[in-house]
């Protein structure tokens, strides 16, 4: 199968993300990249864990003074749900239902924006409490870990939108199907990282 | 021709190795251990060297045979062998055994050298030294004796001396090669270990060992040397007494020295203490303590100990230790002022 081939509902393959050599390569390459990202985030987690609550003086807030359940919970729900919506998008992609896929992708992006908005609000809130990037090692480690994840979300959103714009007119073909698929992998991975962030940073932070 | 060059090469090594293994100064080399720690390490080094030389010999044996027997002589195609399980088991198992022979003493020595329980025991009489490293100089505090000295560590022989190490600026590493391995002075935490100075070997070395900084710490890292005076327990106790008895700065003996003291009190005393008491917290001790400067063996750890070098140093420390923290902290001195200062400083002695 060539990437340029025009396909129809009938001829659309079962695994469009892997039906050309280029697609197979992209699929595998992206997974490997995620393997590397795992180590990247592990390094950040390790750094965070060793610098948690390391502040120069007692006037600065610690993890247990900062984090609040409700905010984290809402953010978590937004991101988890966006993971599901992107699964739907891929489901429709596999069924060659371009319009539906776009709708679900749009939903995913919307949820992502919601999450990012909450994060901006949250950071702003902490800064007012005296927990700044530059005020302590704890602050640096916190904003770097959570911020790295936030930057991943932001990049994912840009990626998602440019994919949608770029392909709005073209529809689905074997050239862009793997791109959508790989994006969804990325998005799930962001969610995986978040699961550990809310557990290790927020929940464990509140437990003490 | 090629073969010849090879042999020449190896005999060259052999000669070079023989001639030069005699080098290395006894008060500096790790190959002339002068204390229990260095002994343990020397033995480990010896054991591992024997194993390694054995390994090299075996490899060389096969190597040489291959070289002579299997050079290409004709166009024949050799038999394509896949491998040999027997051989492979041999060269897997034997190295494992050899490594075990090395691993066991390694682990036990590692634990032994890290044993500092005595140090934390409040009632122990063991000598403890708090080593604080600074950009290019060393501060030695004896917390139990309540005294401080700098640049020259004084220790009793034939007993374990415990060290507590920390850096006040960037990371350094505390190393007395002839007496034992090094330990880093971190900026984050206190590291602890012990050393023992052998009386007999100290005597042979003239009671003076070389100490070095072993972690890159800036331009003058190479010059961050210190000296170790190892003395018998009695001499050590006497030294401590002398140090403790100095409550006020030593009085200048001559008029010139008096002049020097005045200059010192005006320009230098803000950084340099001249009493050995550890009154100030360690973070406030920002320059070497000079209480017993006249009794030291080096100026700034590296220069010969005489008035001329003292003057040179004060005139322009930057040329001797680039990047040191003394440069520019005091006014330019005239030749007369330098003479006076040198006279005063060389007269600072606690032992009579």
């Amino acid at each position: 199968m060539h990437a340029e081939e025009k396909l129809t509902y009938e001829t659309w393959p079962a695994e469009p993300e892997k039906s050309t050599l280029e697609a197979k390569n992209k699929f595998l390459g992206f997974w490997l990249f995620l393997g590397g990202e795992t180590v990247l985030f592990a390094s950040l987690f390790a750094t965070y864990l060793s610098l948690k609550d390391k502040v120069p003086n007692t006037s600065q807030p610690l993890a247990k003074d900062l984090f609040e359940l409700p905010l984290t919970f809402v953010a978590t729900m937004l991101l988890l749900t966006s993971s599901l919506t992107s699964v739907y998008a891929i489901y429709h992609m596999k069924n060659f239902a371009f319009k539906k896929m776009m709708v679900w992708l749009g939903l995913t992006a919307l949820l992502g924006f919601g999450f990012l908005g909450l994060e901006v609000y949250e950071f702003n809130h902490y800064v007012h409490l005296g927990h700044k990037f530059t005020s302590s090692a704890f602050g640096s480690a916190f904003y770097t870990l959570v911020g790295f994840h936030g930057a991943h979300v932001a990049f994912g959103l840009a990626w998602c939108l440019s994919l949608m714009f770029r392909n709005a007119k073209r529809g689905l073909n074997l050239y862009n199907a793997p791109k959508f698929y790989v994006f969804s992998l990325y998005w799930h991975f962001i969610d995986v990282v978040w699961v550990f962030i809310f557990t290790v940073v927020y929940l464990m932070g509140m437990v003490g | 021709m090629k073969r010849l060059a090879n042999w020449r090469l190896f005999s060259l090594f052999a000669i070079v190795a023989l001639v030069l293994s005699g080098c290395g100064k006894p008060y500096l080399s790790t190959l002339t251990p002068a204390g229990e720690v260095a002994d343990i390490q020397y033995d480990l080094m010896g054991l591992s060297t024997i194993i390694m030389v054995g390994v090299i010999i075996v490899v060389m044996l096969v190597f040489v045979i291959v070289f002579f027997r299997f050079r290409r002589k004709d166009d024949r195609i050799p038999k394509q062998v896949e491998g040999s399980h027997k051989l492979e088991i041999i060269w897997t198992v034997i190295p494992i055994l050899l490594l075990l022979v090395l691993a066991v003493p390694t682990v036990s020595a590692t634990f032994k050298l890290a044993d500092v329980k005595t140090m934390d025991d409040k009632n122990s009489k063991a000598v403890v030294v708090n080593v604080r490293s600074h950009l290019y100089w060393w501060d030695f505090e004896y917390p139990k004796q309540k005294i401080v000295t700098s640049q020259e560590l004084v220790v009793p022989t034939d007993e374990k001396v415990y060290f507590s190490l920390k850096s006040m600026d960037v990371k350094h590493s505390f190393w007395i090669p002839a007496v034992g391995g090094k330990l880093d002075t971190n900026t984050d935490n206190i590291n602890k270990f012990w050393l023992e100075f052998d009386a007999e070997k100290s005597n042979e070395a003239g009671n003076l060992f070389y100490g070095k900084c072993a972690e890159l710490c800036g331009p003058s890292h190479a010059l961050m040397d210190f000296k170790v005076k190892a003395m018998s327990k009695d001499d050590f106790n006497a030294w401590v007494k002398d140090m403790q008895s100095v409550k006020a700065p030593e009085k200048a003996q001559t008029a010139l020295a008096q002049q020097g003291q005045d200059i010192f009190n005006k320009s230098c005393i803000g950084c340099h203490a001249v009493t050995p008491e550890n009154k100030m917290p360690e973070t406030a001790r920002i320059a070497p303590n000079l209480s017993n400067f006249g009794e030291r063996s080096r100026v700034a750890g590296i220069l010969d100990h005489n008035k001329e070098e003292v003057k040179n140093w004060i005139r322009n420390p930057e040329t001797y230790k680039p990047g040191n923290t003394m440069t520019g902290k005091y006014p330019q001195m005239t030749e007369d002022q330098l003479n006076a200062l040198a006279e005063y400083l060389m007269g600072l002695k606690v032992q009579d």
Partner: protein
Amino acid sequence: MSTYAQKKGFGATLWDFLTTVDHKKIAILYLIAGGFFFLIGGIEAVFIRIQLAVPNNDFVSAGAFNEIITMHGTTMIFLAAMPLVFAFMNAVMPLQIGARDVAFPYVNALGFWLFFFGGIFLNLSWFLGGAPDAGWTSYASLAIHSKGHGVDFYVLGLQISGLGTLIGGINFLVTIINMRAPGMTYMRMPLFTWTTFVTSALILFAFPPLTVGLVLMMFDRLFGANFFEVAQGGNTVIWEHLFWIFGHPEVYILILPAFGIFSEIFAMFSRKRLFGYSSMVFATVLIGFLGFMVWAHHMFTTGLGPVANAIFAVATMAIGVPTGIKIFNWLFTMWGGSVKFTTPMHYAFAFIPTFVMGGVTGIMLASAAADYQYHDTYFVVAHFHYVIVGGVVLALLAGTHLYWPKMFGTMLNETMGKITFWTFFIGFHMTFFIQHFLGLWGMPRRVFTYLPGQGFETSNMISSIGAAFMSVGVIVLLINIIVTSVKNVRVGNDPWGDGRTLEWSIPSPPPFYNFKQLPLVRGLDAYWIEKMEGKKEMTPAEPLGDIHMPNSSFLPFTTSLGLFIAAFGAMYHVDDKGWALPVLFIGLLVTFGSMLLRSVKDDHGFHIHKEELMNEDDNKGVKA
């Protein structure tokens, strides 16, 4: 469309190389750039040896000396050895597995340009206020303390080139997993391909910790963070861990491909298949695996405590076992063989005792309690130059001679090759053997001078003379390259006559699509098998058909250039320079703009049609 087989002007050739996505041309780029940085690193090494030739020397100042050793280590490891290794991986690995290109030709080019711009950025520090001076390890307390922009150059330059290496690694992995020719099972892959595979996996997992470490240091130095600021709760030991979690696998990233090159050479010039192939593969994987569990052996004196030291000591020693397996398998490959001492074989043969010496001193270092004495002395310097120069550099020199005909279609002169070998080899042992003793006698490393009267004089002099010999060797190699390129005697498919693997079954240099028809692989040493059956060529695995090829692109260059520009903005931002932030944004804009352009433009590549391929054949027939 068919850009091949045409003579072109200089401008066109340059443009061709700036936009190429062909793995063979990228290999040449890596070879040139890596070779260039090797010369720079070598000159720095010579400066070190001149300064240390006599006590109290003032050839360079103390500050400059620290810059020189830092740049020597950094340049040699990141900008010379790794790219040169990448050069051979790019040139040879796709051919060895019977592929037409790598999996991501575009990313391949991007990887090169990122490395190149990172390297240039790092070296510009010499002209812009001083090079990094905290050692190639850049330990945090000193690095944070270091004034000027030197360490910023280190942090940003390595970040950029590290990114290039990482994507290069992913590219090789996917290529090997997905693009092997029919019949090329994993256990039929040549050993160089195997080591490329494991090395790439190490890159994938080792570079992220370095990336994170560099980010933390960048945040501390440029954006006011406190990761390593002890007074603010920071901890400098984090840097040491992150650096060595990267740093130790890094040395295996370098040595494994070297092992791969030597494995090819031993088999070729002994005319024997590699002894114990499967245990060689197993050992390679095991070394890679263990490589991740020993990093703290660089930190024995940091004060991690006896438990950690003991664990890491024993884990480190374990690596001696798989390495020993390799050494003996090589020896027994030659055993019973018909060994021809070509230039590459000289290197391979000399490598064995040299590397064993370096390896066993590694095991000595691993003995934690004894390492308290060795650490940060010239003993360590001797160890790692024995493994790096005696292992990696010898392999790179061997590889240069071995693969030169495959890359450029002409042989290097054998006599000059042997002169290079002997001068370099003798000089090498002169320089570094004596350093073991210097270390044991108490000479710390990274000292810009030493005082007379400590017994260091003679030995340092000998060491410096050795470096002069090595320089002569390198210069002879350069002359060799120039002379043979001018003569340009063309060679056929298998110029050494003993080729065993697929790359020797196609023309030198190969056509840009590599294989007209993908070859059918029937076992280990596929080409050798066919040769032994009296055939001249591989049996094709597919009928002649259209070949799909990727388009060239200038975007890898601009993407990397953008980051290069942005790095200047980020760095001068701390000096409150007005232009810094705009420059940062312009740089990022160029980068992200290029990425966006790449992603919105469909790039389907092009096809070489069957007829063209057949014409090609006819032309050849005429010429021959």
